[in-house]
């Protein structure tokens, strides 16, 4: 006989446990890192955090929405540029942060309307998003010269926008954050975005999005409009990528058209693929791992970074298409099954920790 779960029992469900564990470790890193690392290390971690959030945006739309966005860099770049132009004009960074989220969302809404309501195939969506980011790259690249300015901000073409003012305390333009403050802002927003995405995926909206990924026709027959849900998911993902762009601009104090580049779009795909499609932890870990490897390889100067990235991408597609996090989880599960199977062979296995959410959304 099954009873409805009490609130206390709901808390110890595997999904809630994994969620709490993730948020707790996020908070530990957030408050622990400044005590352990020097300023250089902290700044490097801030860069990783920006890329991790970028990877989350891709992991959400690709892994849960089933939309192949190959031009996610377009939203990263739009967010970064929106922040830079906004903050140079206003002086205060409060509104520009919202601009960095809103501009990519609006752009994604417009582009997504034509794509999803045109009902084009998944592959075409990949190609169009890719093309959009390439063309944005070329467009921003040509904006050198003082005639290309938005208010006070010169776009600067290939050289980009230097000396972007950092975030300040909301509403207090004189009080700019130091590198440690930027770290708290970056890692704090990563934790918030993670919680936000977990909440979305647990909500009715998120379940419909996943249902559409699993079987679009069936979801439509039940009465949901796949076009609308895909469009909204696409816009959410674009907003997160835009926030990542804002953090990226804060991290370097500088932004150039390379944020729109193909390498950037490819990198984020690799982050998600390496970490694990259909998880949220995977993209974060993938981003940190690959960024770290790229920096190490750059310092060693052994191989060209493009060559390395390409090799990683081909290897993972051919050999480990599900990514590292799911592989590790299956390994742990199999180990657990083997151990418990030896002890009590007859008992049917319940869901293992961490599988409740992921198991539903992954094939």
């Amino acid at each position: 006989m099954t009873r409805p779960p009490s609130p206390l029992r709901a808390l110890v469900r595997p999904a809630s446990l994994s969620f709490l564990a993730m948020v707790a470790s996020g908070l530990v890193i957030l408050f622990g890192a400044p005590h352990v690392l020097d300023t250089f290390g902290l700044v490097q971690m801030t860069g990783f955090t920006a890329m991790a959030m970028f990877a989350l945006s891709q992991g959400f739309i690709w892994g849960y929405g089933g939309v192949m966005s190959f031009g996610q860099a377009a939203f990263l770049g739009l967010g970064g540029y929106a922040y830079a132009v906004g903050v140079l004009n206003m002086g205060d960074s409060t509104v520009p942060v919202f601009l960095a989220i809103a501009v990519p969302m609006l752009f994604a809404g417009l582009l997504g309307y034509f794509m999803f309501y045109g009902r084009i195939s998944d592959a075409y969506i990949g190609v169009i998003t890719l093309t959009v980011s390439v063309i944005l790259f070329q467009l921003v690249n040509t904006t050198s010269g003082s005639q290309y300015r938005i208010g006070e901000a010169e776009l600067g073409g290939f050289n980009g926008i230097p000396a972007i003012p950092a975030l300040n305390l909301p509403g207090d333009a004189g009080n700019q954050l130091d590198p440690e403050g930027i770290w708290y802002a970056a890692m704090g927003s990563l934790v918030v975005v993670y919680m936000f995405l977990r909440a979305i995926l647990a909500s009715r909206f998120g379940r419909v999005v996943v249902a559409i990924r699993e079987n679009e026709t069936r979801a439509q027959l039940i009465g949901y409009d796949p076009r609308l849900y895909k469009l909204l998911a696409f816009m959410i993902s674009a907003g997160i990528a835009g926030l990542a762009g804002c953090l990226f601009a804060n991290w370097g104090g500088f932004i150039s058209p390379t944020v729109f580049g193909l390498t950037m779009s490819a990198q984020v795909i690799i982050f998600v693929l390496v970490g694990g499609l259909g998880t949220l932890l995977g993209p974060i870990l993938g981003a940190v791992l690959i960024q770290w490897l790229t920096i190490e390889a750059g310092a060693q100067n052994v191989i060209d970074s493009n060559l390395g990235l390409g090799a990683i991408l081909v290897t993972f597609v051919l050999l480990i298409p599900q990514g590292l996090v799911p592989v590790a989880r299956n390994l742990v599960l199999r180990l657990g099954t083997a151990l418990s199977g030896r002890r009590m062979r007859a008992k049917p296995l319940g869901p293992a920790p961490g599988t409740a959410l992921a198991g539903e959304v992954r094939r």
Partner: protein
Amino acid sequence: MAPDLIGLLGFNVLAGIATLALITLGLGVIYGMMRIINLAHGEFMMLGAYTAVAASDAGLNIWVAMLVLPPLVVGLIGLVLERTVIRFLYGRMMDTMLATWGISLGLIGLVTSIYGNVVRGVSTPVGSFEIGRYGASLYSLVIVAAACAALAGLYLLLRLTKFGLILRATMQNPRMAASLGVSPDRIYMATFALGAGLAGLAGGVLAPISGISPAMGAAYISRAFITVLGGGPAILTGTGLASTLFGFINELVSFKTTPVIGDVALLVAAVLLIRVLPQGITGRYLRRSL
């Protein structure tokens, strides 16, 4: 507008259409026949251009270096990549896109390691001629001729030869073809090599008029992708029609503004087009054409 200006503009539009057809054909063959979107297409073109540079530096006749060697060399590279990577991924469209993207990055990295990240060039083998007061490049005529030759050659290959017949049959129904004694595996291999070779040809032909660098492919792929999307499933008719439409728009807007705005106009036109015709032009009209 003066008549000679109109003449020049018309000539440039023609050259633009031919360029578009040339850079799209290889992508169109692989997509139309095998349903694989080859994201390494731009890099295949880049390899074709580098082949032309290397061959002409080695003292080979410039025409041989541009028109004969690139398709052969890049076709061979395509063959090797198909055997080592692509063939394991048939039927998994997204994975083939990701794998070809990986190949694309890898090729950029490889060529950068070998030649360095510098821009190289090949001199144009022919001069210019005049339309009224304006000078126009004779080389554009070479591009038009190459595009026409490639389209006609492909048509004849698919229409008249036994290989073309087997190829089309395999694409329509691989199992039936297999039961009649054809090996689909080998046909896919040949098709991928053919598409790669056509990309190589485009790279070789365009080498004299482009800056040849490891990342040059990115300059072409957006236009090539748009044209394939706009064209739809029929390779030759689709490529021809979409190149004409988009080449016309691109050249006119580029003439009025800048080439980059021309590309933006191309993208906008394509996005509007797929809203109306999600399957491309030949998805609705002329469906039974080649």
